[in-house]
Structures are given as C-alpha cells and as structure tokens.
C-alpha cells in the first residue's frame, strides 16, 4: 500500500509536469491549428534559460523561472511570425514537418552550445527537505513546489482564457477563425498572444524539469511525446482535459513501471493513444466540436 501511494505521488508530480508541457501545445493547436513539435525544444531551452539565469548568473529560482517564460514566449512569437504564418495556408502535414525541422535545428544548436556532458543543476526551492507521511512515504519538497506552480499556472491560464476579453478572442478564433476576424478580432495579434503563452508555458515546464532534475539538451523529447498524447487524450485544445489527462498518464506511467515492468513504461502512452483513437475514431484532426 505504501509503495502504491508513493508511486501515486511520483506520478502526480510527473503528470503535473507533463500537463504544463501539454497545455502550451494544446493552446496553440486549439487556436492556431498547428501541432507545434518545436514545443519540445522550447521546454528544453526553457530549462537552459533557467540554468543560465538561476545558476550561472546566480539569482533565485523564480527569477530564472520567469525569465524562461518570457524568453520562450518571445521565441514562440518569433517562430509564429517567421515560419508558421507562412505555412498557415498549407496542409497540416507541411506545418507538422516544418515544426519537426525547427525541433531538430533547435536541438542541434543547443547541443553545439552546451553539449551533453555536464552537470547543470538548477537550485529549486524545497530541494533540501521532504515531507514524510508515516514511515515510508516521502514527498520531496521540490515536487510539492512543482505541483503548486502547476496549479498556479493552470489557474492563471484559466483566468486569462475564460475570464478576460483576450481569452474570448482566443476562444472565438479557435471555434471559428474567419468569423472571429469579421467581429474585428486581429488574427495576427491573437496568433502572437497564443504563441507567447504557449511558449511561456513550455519555458515554465522546462524550468521545473530543470529544477527537479538536470538541464540537458534532450530533455524536451519525452515531455513532447507525452504532451502530444495528452492533448489527443484530453481533447484537442482543452485545458481542463490537459491537466486531467496529464495526471492520469503520469500516474499510469509510474504504476506500470513499478508494478508491471520497467521496460513497459513506454507502452503506456502508446497504449492510451491506441485506445483513445479506437474509442474516438475521429482521431487527431476530426474531434467533435471542431468546425471546418
């Protein structure tokens, strides 16, 4: 029982990380209709931004955290205005491939600059202590901090999307892009906003992963993969879906690794993907509620 609870805790913390990674992807897909694979590298670069600001310059974790959000938000805008805007009229596959190209380029650049041979710690609040429940269950302080940050980010995101006019314009664009334009919504401004928030969420996921673990050039890969599955699982573009699907996937992953077999952890996301696609055969590009 204690082992089970312990794995639930690990799974929750991991799932929260994944949910933040997925939220940015979901937002961009929901409004802009592009699956931005480069998001994985925004997560990674967010980790490096935090490393540079927090560790190398020597500031508090949250200074690096917000710097990562800001820089990755701006990088998101840059990607939208240089690459995705040009490809927006093209088929979805072109955009997907272009974003994969960006993923590779950013990965190679990071590897060239930083390499994969070094310890790159980011000091995070809560690292030094842990909460003990009974004899055997422990919750690392840093994981508690991560969960708290995640909840705060989701509350903030919910507020922006559902309680402000900016959020209304994003939702309107998501549900009918051309109609939204006819209502006087500036398409490019919404696009920039969405890519900024998406990038910033990616950056924050990287900052948290970097704080919990080590900052490294390949740290965006698994979160990207899981995030893709989360947004399919949670309903494309749905924020509430992202957090729930992230939690389920994170917990399922940990329980599978622990109870079924370490080699089988990787099957969980793909198993979930298969089941979701079978139960909802509309698949990636045709979920209900989506208008042509």
């Amino acid at each position: 029982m204690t082992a089970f609870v312990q794995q639930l805790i690990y799974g929750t913390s991991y799932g929260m990380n994944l949910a933040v990674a997925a939220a940015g992807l979901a937002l961009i897909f929901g409004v802009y209709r592009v699956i931005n694979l480069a998001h994985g590298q925004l997560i990674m670069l967010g980790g490096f931004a935090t490393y540079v600001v927090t560790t190398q310059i020597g500031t508090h974790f949250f200074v690096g955290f917000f710097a990562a959000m800001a820089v990755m938000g701006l990088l998101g805008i840059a990607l939208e205005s240089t690459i995705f805007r040009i490809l927006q009229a093209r088929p979805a596959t072109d955009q997907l491939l272009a974003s994969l190209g960006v993923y590779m380029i950013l990965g190679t650049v990071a590897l060239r600059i930083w390499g994969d041979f070094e310890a790159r710690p980011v000091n995070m609040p809560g690292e030094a202590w842990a909460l003990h429940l009974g004899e055997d269950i422990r919750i690392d302080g840093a994981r508690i901090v991560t969960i708290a940050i995640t909840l705060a980010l989701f509350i903030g995101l919910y507020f922006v999307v559902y309680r402000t006019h900016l959020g209304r314009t994003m939702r309107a664009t998501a549900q009918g892009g051309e109609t939204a334009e006819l209502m006087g919504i500036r398409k490019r401004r919404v696009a920039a906003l969405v890519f900024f928030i998406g990038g910033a969420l990616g950056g924050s996921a990287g900052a948290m992963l970097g704080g919990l673990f080590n900052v490294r050039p390949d740290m965006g890969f698994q979160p990207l993969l899981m995030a893709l599955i989360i947004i399919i699982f949670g309903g494309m573009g749905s924020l509430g879906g992202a957090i729930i699907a992230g939690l389920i996937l994170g917990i399922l992953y940990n329980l599978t690794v622990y109870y079924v077999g370490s080699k089988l952890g990787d099957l969980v996301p793909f198993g979930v993907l298969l089941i979701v696609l079978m139960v909802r055969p509309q698949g990636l590009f045709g979920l209900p509620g989506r208008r042509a």
Partner: protein
Amino acid sequence: MLEIKNLVLAYGVNRVVRDVSFSVAKGEVFALLGPNGAGKTSILRAISGLVPAVSGDIVFEGKTLLRRRPHSIVLDGIAHVPEGRQIFPEMSVSDNLMVGATVHINNRARVRELEARCLELFPIIRERARQAGGTLSGGEQQQLTIARGLMADPRLLIVDEPTLGLAPAIINTVADSFRKLRDLGLTIIVAEQNADFALKVADHGAVLASGELSFSGSVDTLRDRDVLRRAYLGA
C-alpha cells in the same frame, strides 16, 4: 453610402464576380438576390476584406475598402453576419455577444449601452445568456448572430442568407427584426436566395446570375414576377 464599382473577384483563375457595380444608399435595406453560386457571398466577403479584389473598387463613405484588414473595416462601421450563422458553439451566448464588441471593448460604457440595445431588440438572448451558443435553435442562433454584429455598433450591417434553413414562422420574426433595425437608422445589405423574404424587407435590390449583374433597381420593379424570373434565369 457604399458603392461597388466594376468589381471583379476571382478564386485562382476562376472569375466568380465579373464587372459588378451597384450602390447602396444610407438608411435603406438593399437585397442582393440570385441563385446559389451567383457570387453574392463573394461580394460580401470582399466588402469585409476577406477576399481581395482583382479589379474595380469598393467605396464606403468616400473611402476605399480595398487592401484593408477585416478588423479595420469593422472599426469603420461595417459589421458582417456571415452565412450559416457561425456562432461560436462552445462559448456562452453572452460571450458570443461580447466578441462582437471587440473593436471598442475598452469603452465599457459604450459596450453596456450596446448590450442593452441588443437585449431589448432580442429578449431571447437575455434568457439564454449562460447557455452555450451551440445549444440554441436555428432561429435563436440567427438572432444571436445579428445581435453580435450589432455589438460592433455598425452603420452598415451585412447579413448573408439569414433565412437559410429556417422555418417560415421563424423567417417572419427575422423579417420583423430587420424592420426594427432599419428604424434604428441602420443601412443593411442582405444577400438572399429567398426572394420572398428579400422583397418583404428590402427597398432596393440587385440580382446576380453567374457572377454578373442582371438587374438593379427598386424592389417594386422586382415584384413583377417576369422581371425577377428573367433576372434569375439571365434571359
């Protein structure tokens, strides 16, 4: 108020509107008639800046609308209620309404005024305010889209196929709301396949057939069935 001059529109090499000219006077309801595929929607989309003109001009209150972004055309006082109603299905009715007010959302007093006007014109919106837009009936949705257009406080309202798919009883309520809008001093362009509806609400009209203008004049003339038939058939 609005002048279309020798307008040519094309999708690729396919010219869907050829050399069309007409003008709409302030305060009138102008009907754009014609069968499906005649080019009505294309002209309306060109007015709103969604489709670029190949040649010709669109002049609103003395200024050309060509090469302008949709949001700046809305700012100038033209609201467009698109074909097929196009409400935002997963947003609440009141959110749908507020999206229409985007261009002056920061002027709270004005938004409140406009909202009050819409609720007075379309009381059903108040009743349904919290419901998702997608759960409204067809007639309710049509009222919502018109109200949403009015939230931009336009001087010219463009309505594309308002009666499409609506039951006759409901078409009458839509016609009523058109009259109310004209009483407010709005200029309206309505594109319709449904000639009966158009003739009921409009002052002037133009008939399009296969991208060309085949008739333009007063509605009284169009009431003569032969004129209308010739215009539709292009004979």
